[in-house]
């Protein structure tokens, strides 16, 4: 019951975000600031997780494929897994942990210290001023970060496959281009955009509705990360079922 009520409230917030988004002026400066925070400052973790995921994928699939002498498929397996699935999902989970939590904490602190009330009093709508830029920035930056993650994953896979496990370089690359098409990439990026929406919406919702001082802020932050992560993984299933 409580969950359904919360879903309803998040949906209402989403509608309010849309209605403020289409009403000029859009605050570009605030959007860029959030793009820097969500995107630029996440690159390091995304590069790291992408690379190592690609590396471990190559290693695992190599041990599997070796049993029926299909080592040549390691490259395409890594590339397909990254672009369709792991790139978007891992990126979204990392950005949720980094930026989604920060959104909840920042807005939560602003709520309990009456800064959000102060915005309202100064005739500035807090949804437009605080939430719209975060949502727009997340929806734009998640696909870009996912491209970085996909790319690094394939590089990592190449490194392990070709340099460490000595799979033929030409075959490795050729099978990637043969089995992976742009559609896989696009679908993965669409997922990433949806995940960006989810993590920013949930983070802002939890922060915006914080009550109860410092403890409340901590609770809002934790709940935001848990709820956003779960929602991302569940919606991933349904998006995959629709797309592929």
């Amino acid at each position, binding site marked *: 019951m409580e969950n359904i009520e919360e879903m309803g409230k998040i949906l209402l917030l989403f509608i309010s975000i849309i209605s403020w988004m289409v009403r000029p002026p859009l605050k570009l400066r605030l959007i860029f600031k959030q793009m820097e925070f969500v995107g630029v400052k996440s690159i390091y973790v995304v590069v790291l997780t992408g690379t190592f995921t690609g590396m471990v994928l190559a290693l695992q699939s190599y041990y599997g494929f070796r049993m029926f002498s299909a080592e040549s498929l390691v490259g395409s397996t890594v590339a397909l897994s990254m672009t369709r699935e792991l790139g978007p999902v891992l990126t979204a989970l990392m950005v949720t942990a980094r930026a989604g939590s920060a959104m909840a904490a920042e807005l939560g602190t602003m709520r309990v*210290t009456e800064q959000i009330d102060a915005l309202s009093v100064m005739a500035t709508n807090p949804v437009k001023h605080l939430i719209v830029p975060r949502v727009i920035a997340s929806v734009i930056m998640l696909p870009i970060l996912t491209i970085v993650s996909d790319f690094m994953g394939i590089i990592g896979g190449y490194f392990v496959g070709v340099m460490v496990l000595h799979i033929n370089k030409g075959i490795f690359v050729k099978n990637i281009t043969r089995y992976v098409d742009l559609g896989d990439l696009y679908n993965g990026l669409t997922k990433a955009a949806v995940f960006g929406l989810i993590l920013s919406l949930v983070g802002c919702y939890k922060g915006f509705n914080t009550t109860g001082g410092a403890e409340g802020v901590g609770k809002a932050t934790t709940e935001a990360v848990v709820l956003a992560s779960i929602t991302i993984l569940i919606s991933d299933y349904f998006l995959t079922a629709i797309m592929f």
Partner: protein
Amino acid sequence: MIELVDVHKSFGTQKVLDGLNLRIEDGKTTVIIGKSGGGKSVLLKHIIGLLKPDSGQILVNGIDITTLNDRELNEVRKNFGMLFQEAALFDSMNVGENVAFPLREHTKKKEKEIREIVDERLRAVGLPGVENKMPSELSGGMRKRVGLARALAMHPQIILYDEPTTGLDPIMTEAINDLIINTQKNFNVTCVVISHDIESIFEIGHNIAMLYDGKIVEYGTPEVIKQSDNPVLKQFLSGSLVGPISIM
């Protein structure tokens, strides 16, 4: 004119405002007094639509603001300035940006002009040259004064002050009282001030309202209030422990 008509507000089972009626005259300063936790800040937040009453009307220049949507409420709020009890400065911005915020949001003033206004307002509250400090680097009293400078930045027609002088030293209290009085006189604004400081109340208030038990139990000019024999008011002004107001 601002008028509160039969306003009720509860949080859960706790009744805070219980059929409150109050009329705030234009171009005058109305001071609201009452015990700590009695609902003064809650009352102030109703006047600017931050809280919605469970029942009752809040009329600002004849419009019941409880029926307005977000956008209409924003238009009404452009006439208001408010100082929060805890200042509520934006901690991601420095002092100068805080004071300039409403100017940048709602006016097309040039950067240079905005900087001049910010400088002038900060001087008025006795804080020249702190533009580049962050709120976290200020003392409580300094934060409050920056909040005051921000509330006055736009020259609002109605100003709500939630305990403007609490936590200030006697000299600064006097200076802020003068600022409130002068702002009120020079721009003929309507002020609502919450205060615990008995001396200040009589200095700045044209009218004084005593909030007790969710209602306004006494209202009048300082002379009337001083002579009132309402036991609640008498006890409050004398700071006595015996009387109808219990500290529990």
